[in-house]
């Protein structure tokens, strides 16, 4: 299986700079959850409340921890990989391989996601050991499994969207800013900045038909027992629909782009 080969090769590459990998992750989680802690503890204290949008303070912190990690998981590899390869003419290398480019890149992407996933598990275990789990949350196997499967879907959906943006670089010099834009939008609308229940009713209604909530917050919501089975099925369907939509766009744009590409720098 070439997919397995590619996956393990990519893993080995990641391992070669693992120190960076871990320190960056820890710094990121500590700073991000830390700032959220100060922000929300000031709001909780000021209002004298013990829950907001049915999140206790404890659960809210766990929510930030998970969404921060999930944001890393779905983004996987450094953004701009594919566009860089197109821009620098390295794409030709992949085109001669007898395997579909999209799938090849997705497998590479998954290897990175997997590393972040391991970090997420460590982060949750660490959190549970130091602060304990919020009382209202009991972890069941089926929920963890569902969370994991949904994460895979999130990865695929994000990759599908990002891939479409990346291949815009067939025509534009630098699509880096577009990818950063995706990061900003998925940060807010995906629920990494704030739990989506805090948004106004009307906004939530629109939001849940868009792909963004399913990128970041939904898997955390599954883990924290905030969604029902029925909602999960519906979410799965929406993710599929959006993925197909973006895959079709990719196929069309890719075909046009390749014609345009004509092997720069060969």
């Amino acid at each position, binding site marked *: 299986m070439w997919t397995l080969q590619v996956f393990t090769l990519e893993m080995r590459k990641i391992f070669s700079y693992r120190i960076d990998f871990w320190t960056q992750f820890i710094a990121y989680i500590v700073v991000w959850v830390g700032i959220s802690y100060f922000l929300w503890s000031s709001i909780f204290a000021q209002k004298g409340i013990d829950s907001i949008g049915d999140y206790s303070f404890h659960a809210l912190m766990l929510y930030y921890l998970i969404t921060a990690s999930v944001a890393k998981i779905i983004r996987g590899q450094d953004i701009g990989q594919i566009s860089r390869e197109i821009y620098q003419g390295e794409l030709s290398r992949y085109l001669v391989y007898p395997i579909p480019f999209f799938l090849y890149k997705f497998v590479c992407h998954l290897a990175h996601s997997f590393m972040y996933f391991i970090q997420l598990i460590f982060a949750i275990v660490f959190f549970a050991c130091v602060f304990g789990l919020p009382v209202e949350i009991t972890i069941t196997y089926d929920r963890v499994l569902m969370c994991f499967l949904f994460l895979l879907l999130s990865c695929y959906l994000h990759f599908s969207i990002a891939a479409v943006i990346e291949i815009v670089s067939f025509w534009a010099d630098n699509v880096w*800013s577009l990818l950063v834009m995706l990061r900003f939008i998925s940060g807010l609308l995906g629920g990494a900045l704030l739990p989506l229940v805090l948004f106004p009713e009307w906004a939530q209604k629109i939001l849940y038909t868009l792909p963004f909530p399913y990128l970041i917050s939904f898997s955390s919501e599954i883990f924290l027992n905030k969604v029902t089975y029925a909602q999960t099925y519906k979410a799965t369907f929406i993710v599929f629909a959006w993925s197909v939509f973006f895959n079709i766009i990719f196929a069309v744009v890719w075909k046009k782009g390749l014609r345009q590409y004509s092997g720069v720098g060969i």
Partner: protein
Amino acid sequence: MTRYFRLYLHFLRFSFSKAMEFRVDFFFRIVMDCFFYAINIAFYQVLFLHTSTLGGWNEEQAMIFVAAYILVDALQMTIFSTNLWWFPIFVNRGDLDYYLVRPVSSLFFLSVREFAANSLCNVFIAIGIMIWAISSYSQPLIWWKILLFVLLVVNGTFIYYMVHMLFLIGVFWTHSARGFDSLFRHLCLVHERPDGIFHGATRTVFTTVLPFCLMCSFPARLLFEDFQLSVLLHILITTMLMFFVLRWAWKFSLKAYSSASS
């Protein structure tokens, strides 16, 4: 001094003629930053659906604060960002050599030589947001306080640059600045949050050694609250100290660079 000013005019000219070439990217970057602004405003709008004050500020005040850090972001993207992005790469490739043989401060040259002309549009947008935020403020504001506020926000940009540079300077020893750079980018979030939410040791750190709170929060404090000379002095003295530390660190690291290279 005038020579440095004229040098800077050259950098400006270069960047504009360069920016004319990459049309699509020019546009993308403007849109990207606009999204950043919109998202930050939306974030605080949503927060204030659930609370009436945050770190001691009401929604109107928070909007002025948001406008301030948007302005800092736009300014630093325009003046410094590109340069600091290249800086670790230059050090690693040994490209500092040509800067060292010129009779001009290498720190100046490396920090400002690439002016991001496309981000300049965002500065205007950020100024627009600032005008909107200040004009929709319901209490009267004294004109000199507004002026002081704007000046201190510009000073905040300078602090932002200095802190970033101090984080990156480690590249002279580690040969990879990625860790430092990403740590800085995460920590940067602190300057986008009101200083009132931080307390204890954390607050001390963010108002002294890592003066993120002095970039926008303290200037905003001077605008809303009674004028306190101590706050103003706190900002100015910290800025000056940081500047000396940066100058010293630069000298020190150039020595390391020169001793290590061959």
